[in-house]
C-alpha cells in the first residue's frame, strides 16, 4: 500500500473545489483515459485579475485527485503571473510530499495549470520543435527536460516517476538516458558560482536583519492585500510569526508563508531559517 501523508488522504477523501466552472476565464486539460489519469482545470478571475475561483475534475488515483485538489487551493487568490510560477514541487510540498513513484500526479497538476493560463491568454501551449520520446505515454523531450531541470532528476527511473516517460515498453530508456546526460551537463555549466558565505550574525543582529527583511520584502506586499504579519520571536534558526488582517483567515496562508517568507529570509538572513506560524 502506498504511504500517503495525512494531507494526501484528506484531499483525496474530501477533495476541495470539484467541478467545472460554467463560464470560465481559462480551462486546461491534460492526460487521457488511455494514460490512466487526466485533469480538467477551470478558473475565473476577479476584477483585480486574481484567481477568484478554481475547480477541477480528475480521473485517476488517489494522489492524482489529491494533487488536483491541492492545486486549486494553492492558486486561488494568485495573479496569473504568480500562478505561472507554481511548480510541481510546490503541489507535492503542499500535500506534505508524495511517494516518488507518484510525482507524475503533481506534474500533471502543473501542466494543467500551464494549459489553463495559456488558454486564458489566448496562446497555444507551445509544443513546437519537440520530439515524442515515450510513445507509450506520448511524452515529449521538452516535457522530460523540464522535469529534469525543475526536480533535479538523475535517473531514468526518476524521469518515469515524474513524467511517466519510459513506464511502458521501455524502448525509449536509452533516449531518456541521453537526455538526462545532456541536461545535467547544461545545468552544471549554468550553475552560478557559489554565493559568498553569509556572515555569522549575533542574535541581536539576526533579529534586526529579520525585521528589516520582513519590513522591506514581505509586509508591504501583504498589506496591499489587506493582510499583515508580525514577528513574535526568534529562537536559534526558528522564526515565529503571526498573520494578521486578511491573511489570518486566508486558506492559502500556509502556502504563502512557507514558500514566500521563508525563501526571502533564507536569502537575506541565513540559509537555515525555519518559519513557524503562531496561531492566535
Amino acid at each position, binding site marked *: 500500500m502506498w504511504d500517503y501523508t495525512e494531507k494526501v488522504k484528506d484531499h*483525496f*477523501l474530501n*477533495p476541495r473545489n*470539484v467541478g*467545472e466552472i460554467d463560464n470560465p476565464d481559462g480551462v486546461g*486539460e491534460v492526460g487521457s*483515459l*488511455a494514460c*490512466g*489519469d*487526466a*485533469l*480538467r482545470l477551470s478558473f475565473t478571475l476577479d476584477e483585480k485579475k486574481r484567481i477568484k475561483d478554481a475547480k477541477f*475534475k*480528475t*480521473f*485517476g*488515483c*488517489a*494522489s*492524482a*485527485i489529491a494533487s488536483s485538489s491541492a492545486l486549486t487551493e494553492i492558486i486561488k487568490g494568485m495573479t496569473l503571473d504568480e500562478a505561472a510560477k507554481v511548480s510541481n514541487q510546490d503541489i507535492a510540498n503542499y500535500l506534505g510530499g508524495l511517494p516518488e*513513484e*507518484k510525482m507524475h500526479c503533481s506534474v500533471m497538476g502543473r501542466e494543467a495549470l500551464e494549459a489553463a493560463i495559456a488558454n486564458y491568454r489566448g496562446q497555444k501551449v507551445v509544443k513546437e520543435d519537440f520530439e515524442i520520446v515515450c510513445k*507509450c*505515454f506520448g511524452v515529449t523531450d521538452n516535457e522530460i527536460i523540464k522535469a529534469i531541470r525543475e526536480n533535479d532528476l538523475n535517473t531514468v527511473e526518476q524521469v*518515469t516517476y515524474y513524467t*511517466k516517460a519510459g*513506464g*511502458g515498453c521501455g524502448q525509449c530508456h536509452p533516449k531518456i538516458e541521453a537526455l538526462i546526460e545532456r541536461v545535467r551537463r547544461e545545468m552544471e555549466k549554468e550553475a552560478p558560482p557559489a554565493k559568498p558565505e553569509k556572515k555569522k550574525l549575533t542574535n541581536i543582529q539576526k533579529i534586526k536583519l529579520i525585521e528589516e527583511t520582513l519590513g522591506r520584502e514581505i509586509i508591504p506586499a501583504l498589506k496591499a492585500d489587506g493582510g499583515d504579519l508580525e514577528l513574535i520571536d526568534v529562537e536559534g534558526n526558528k522564526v515565529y510569526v503571526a498573520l494578521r488582517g486578511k491573511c489570518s483567515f486566508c486558506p492559502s496562508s500556509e502556502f504563502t508563508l512557507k514558500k514566500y517568507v521563508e525563501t526571502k529570509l533564507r536569502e537575506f538572513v541565513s540559509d537555515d531559517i525555519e518559519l513557524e506560524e503562531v496561531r492566535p
Partner: protein
Amino acid sequence: MKTVYVDNNATTMVAPEVLEAMLPYFSEFYGNPSSMHFFGGQVQKKVNEAREKVADFLGAEPSEIVFTSCGTESDNAAILGTLDSYPEKRHLITTRVEHPAVDNLSTYLSRKGYRVIELSVDREGRLDLDELRESITDETILVTIMYANNETGVIFPIGEIGEIVKARGIPFHSDGVQAAGKIPLNLKKSTIDMLSISGHKLHAPKGIGVLYIRKGTKFSPFLIGGHQEKGRRGGTENVPYIIGLGEACELAKKNLEDENTRVKALRDYLESKILEKVPNTLVNGDRKNRLPNTLSVSFEYVEGESILLLLSDLGICASSGSACTSGSLEPSHVLRAMGVPFTAAHGSIRFSLSIYNTKEEMDYIVEHLPPIIQRLRDISPFWKDYLKSQGKQ
C-alpha cells in the same frame, strides 16, 4: 471498523486448525527429520504424514510431492529444472497471462537466448488451442500454462492442453496456485507432469509451496544441496509449515464442495447485484469457465486505486488490475492481453472470496460500492462527457 476480506487470491487467512497443528513444531518438536535419533525420527514421521495428505488432496503419490518455499520457487524449479534436463533445445511455450513468476522468468529466458512463444488470449481470456498446436516444434522443451488465472479466475482447458502437449512427447507444467483448493484436481488422471501450488492461497501460511513432479519426469534440482526431497530440493525441511500445509490440504479437500456451492453462490450474488446497481460495469473473463470464488469487474471512467482506497476506508479489502496500485504505469498485462478497453482496464477491481465469507459481507459491499463509484464518476471529467454523448445530460 469491521474488516470484509475479499482478496483471497492475494492471500488467505491461516485456518485456526492449521495454526494449531503447526505450533508444537516451533517448540517441543524441533528435531531435524534427517537425524538418526528418536527425536528427529518422530518429526520425520509427521512430515511424511503431511506429504501423504498433500498427495491425497492432489490425487498424487507421496513420492511425487516436493516441498518448496513458495509458488514462485515451484514455478522456477519446474521451468529451470526442465530446461536444464534438455540442454540441447532452446524453445518453450507459455501464455501472455501468466503470473509474474512465470511471465518474468520467460522474459529473462528470452534474453538468455531461449525462444519463448507466448500464446494469446481472446477478449474473454480464453486460449486458442490451434495456436498451441501450431506453436509446438521438435525444438520445444516445455509447455507451461497456468491452470486458472489469478486476476480473472478464467480456467484453462488443462485436460485438452495436456493431451495436445503429451501427443508430441513434451513435458507439461502448470501453475496451479490459484486452482488448488478451488476446483478439483486429480493429477493421477491428468496429463500434467508438473504442478505448482502455494500454501498461503489455501489457508496455510506464507512461506511454503509444493511442486508436484510426476514419476518418470526428467528434472534437475533447482536448489542444489542435501538429499532432502529425494535430492530434488536441497535444504532442511521447513517442518512446521509442511505440517501446516498438510493440515490445510486436508481441510481444502473437505471444503471443496462448499467452495463450489456456497462460495460460488455468494460470488454470483455479488456479481449480479453489482451489475444491477452500477451502470457501465463489465465482468472480465469467461463467466462459464471461472474459479468459483473470483470476480473481476471493471467500472468505466474511474480508476482502480481510488476505488480500492475508498473501499479500504470502509474496511473492504479487494484488489485491482489498475496501473496505479502496482506502481507500474500500465494496467495489468492480463487485461491488456484480453484487449479490455482503456475506459475499463484502469477501473478494474477483483473480489476473491473464501469459505470464511458470508452473505452479510456481500450485502455490505453491495451497499457501499455503488456510492463510491458514483462519487468517483462525479469527480471524473469523462463521466459527464460520456453522459453528454449518450444524450443523458
